[in-house]
């Protein structure tokens, strides 16, 4: 099974190529090409996962090209971490393919959409299978391309165009960090291989300053891809893409690639206390920062987007706080419940044709299947006990506490409260109360759309039991087979932590219930009491505006300056030379006045001068 794991990414690639040939086809049966090929990937991934579960692993590499004596290799590797990722990615990808069959119904570029999905899945699976940093970087960029194409799928919309460009450029900023980190590591280690890098780290071949520097550079890449502060602004804008794309790329897989990168390079991070602290702080701050923005958004997808940013912050916090397993655990559960939430949101949008939650309401009765599934997702992400999110979030909190980062711990608890609040604000506004918009044509989505949601709904409930204190820490044992030496497998700190976490989430849900369902508290209660703060939050802390005023304007200004420099200084120099030559030639042509007499005069003077010289030098020129 493992020998064939290189086929996993190739199926979606094949789907991409095939669908490009069928791109003009009007038949929506073309979707089955994508669905079946990703289905094959899924089957193979599960097979690989089972094999890895039994303790197997594989690494195959060949020379790609050589630089002098050093060979740059390509190949594939399967270890516990990436086998898990393979399953998550191919599963979500498969479900999203299926879902899109219904969601994209009637779109005139139907096959192209599936082609792009295939390209993205290829890149993402390739990224996961990479045995070295260079290959990871290459697929990392390709993943960005897939995301770019899918965000800009509605290319005629100016917002989509801007969002696609923004996503590409913002992640590119992070990528350059990764690039620098990778190259610096190469010159330290002499290889891009994970194994050799880790070996050098263990042997202490790299100075500690360099370790921190490279780890931070690589983390910059993760920041860009995972939408962490301060490069998070592209992710909410990326919601311009079709909703299945948001579920696949901007919730479950690509944005988790940043977390995966940190996890894959974990021994490097472990070697530098500074790097870990930076990861934890960035993650923690992002978690609460994004959650605060999520409190006031009106677009259903944007709320989910900020929630994604916040949850990714949680994962980073976990990794930074030595909670390797907790981070990956949350990555897994989050992939399921966030994909579920997005797909359910897509189902809602599909039904009511708006994304503004102010225009929804009372959809519980109309969407008999979508609504409960959304509720499951919301409960899971809020960390209500017995659902998956509870276990993973609890573990993150426990490891943060155990790592002695109390400030970040309380930050995370507050973020958990906010998460519960905005998720249920969303739920109550969308599904309960009175309809606030025209809901005449609203009907439940077709079964190709609901089926993937049901699968995800089940997983959103049960995925949490992968790693619990009650039934066994399967995931911990499983990941212990990987290259990362787990510092301490058991993070179950003080027993009050689950209680605090549960209390925070129940408090959030309760508050949302009081405000948006019962109406016991006025909806603009906070807005009125804290107008300044809520305004800032509503405007997303003015980060976009700030970037625009500084970086965008600055770059543009520099560019304008460059144009002026080019026009006046560079071309000016040329013009100066030209006018100098012209002046000289004018002087020459003035002598050439056409008067025979003046020519004669010059000739005579010339002869006189020559004669004088001859006379004075005594007849010799030398």
């Amino acid at each position, binding site marked *: 099974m493992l020998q064939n794991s290189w086929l996993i990414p190739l199926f979606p690639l094949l789907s991409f190529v095939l669908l490009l040939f069928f791109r003009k086809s009007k038949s929506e049966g073309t979707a089955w090409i994508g669905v079946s090929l990703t289905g094959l990937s899924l089957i193979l991934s599960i097979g690989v996962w089972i094999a890895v579960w039994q303790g197997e692993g594989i690494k195959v590499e060949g020379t790609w090209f050589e630089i002098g004596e050093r060979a740059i290799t390509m190949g594939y590797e399967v270890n516990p971490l990436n086998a898990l990722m393979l399953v998550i990615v191919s599963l979500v990808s498969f479900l999203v393919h299926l879902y899109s069959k219904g969601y994209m119904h009637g779109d005139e570029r139907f096959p192209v959409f599936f082609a792009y999905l295939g390209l993205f899945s290829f890149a993402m699976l390739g990224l996961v299978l990479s045995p070295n940093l260079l290959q990871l970087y290459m697929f990392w960029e390709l993943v960005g391309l897939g995301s770019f194409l899918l965000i800009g799928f509605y290319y005629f919309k100016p917002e989509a165009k801007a969002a696609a460009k923004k996503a590409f450029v913002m992640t590119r900023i992070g990528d350059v960090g990764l690039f620098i980190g990778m190259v610096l590591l190469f010159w330290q280690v002499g290889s891009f291989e994970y194994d050799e890098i880790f070996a050098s780290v263990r042997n202490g071949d790299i100075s500690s300053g360099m370790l921190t520097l490279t780890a931070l550079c690589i983390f910059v890449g993760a920041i860009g891809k995972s939408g962490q502060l301060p490069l998070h602004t592209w992710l909410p804008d990326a919601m311009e893409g079709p909703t299945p794309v948001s579920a696949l790329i901007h919730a479950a897989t690509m944005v988790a690639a940043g977390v995966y990168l940190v996890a894959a390079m974990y021994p490097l991070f472990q070697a530098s206390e500074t790097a870990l602290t930076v990861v934890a702080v960035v993650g923690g701050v992002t978690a609460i920062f994004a959650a605060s923005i999520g409190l006031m958004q009106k677009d259903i997808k944007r709320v989910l987007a900020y929630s994604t940013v916040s949850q990714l912050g949680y994962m980073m916090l976990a990794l930074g706080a030595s909670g390797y397993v907790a981070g990956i655990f949350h990555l897994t559960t989050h992939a399921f419940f966030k994909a579920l939430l997005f797909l359910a949101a897509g189902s809602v949008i599909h039904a009511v044709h708006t994304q503004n939650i102010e225009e929804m309401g009372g959809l519980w009765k109309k969407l008999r299947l979508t609504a409960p599934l959304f509720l499951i997702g919301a409960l899971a992400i809020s960390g209500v006990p017995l659902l998956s999110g509870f276990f993973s979030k609890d573990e993150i909190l426990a490891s943060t506490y155990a790592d002695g980062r109390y400030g970040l711990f309380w930050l995370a608890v507050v973020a958990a409260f906010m998460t519960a609040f905005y998720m249920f604000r969303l739920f109550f506004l969308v599904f309960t109360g009175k309809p606030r918009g025209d809901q005449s044509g609203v009907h439940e989505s077709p079964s190709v759309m609901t089926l993937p949601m049901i699968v995800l709904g089940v997983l959103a409930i049960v995925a949490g039991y992968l790693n619990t204190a009650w039934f066994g820490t399967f995931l911990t044992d499983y990941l212990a087979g990987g290259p990362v030496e787990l510092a301490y497998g058991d993070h179950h700190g003080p027993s009050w932590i689950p209680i605090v976490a549960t209390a925070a989430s129940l408090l959030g849900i309760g508050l949302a219930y009081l405000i948006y369902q019962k109406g016991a508290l006025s909806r603009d209660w906070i807005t009125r009491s804290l107008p300044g703060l809520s305004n800032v939050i509503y405007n997303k802390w003015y980060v976009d505006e700030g970037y625009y005023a500084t970086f965008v304007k600055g770059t543009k200004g520099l560019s304008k300056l460059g144009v002026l420099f080019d026009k006046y200084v560079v071309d000016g120099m040329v013009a100066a030379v030209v006018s100098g030559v012209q002046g000289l030639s004018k002087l020459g042509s003035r002598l*050439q*006045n*056409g*008067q*025979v*007499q003046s020519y*004669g*005069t010059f000739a*005579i003077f010339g002869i006189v001068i020559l004669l004088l010289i001859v006379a004075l030098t005594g007849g010799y020129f030398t």
Partner: protein
Amino acid sequence: MSSVPLAAYLMLALILFCIGLFGALTKRNAVIVLISIELMLNAVNINLVAFAKYSINPGLTGQIFSLFTITVAAAEAAVGLAILIALYRNRQTVNVDEMDTMKR
């Protein structure tokens, strides 16, 4: 035989040549330019005759050569004046400054 030295002849020729040169280079009127050229030619003639007479082995070559020069000068004056008249008919002027077609 004669008390006039060679230098005096040469001096005379030099003065004559310089007057001719000055006239040829500065005068506006083409007729005067032509006459100045004649002056220069005559200065040359004087030189020729003087050298012929005063050289180490005196002969008639210089005198004969000056006769050729006079002939050529006459022909040249005739051609020059003819061109001048043709120009005058075309341009109504004998001013040398206005004859700058070489530049245009």
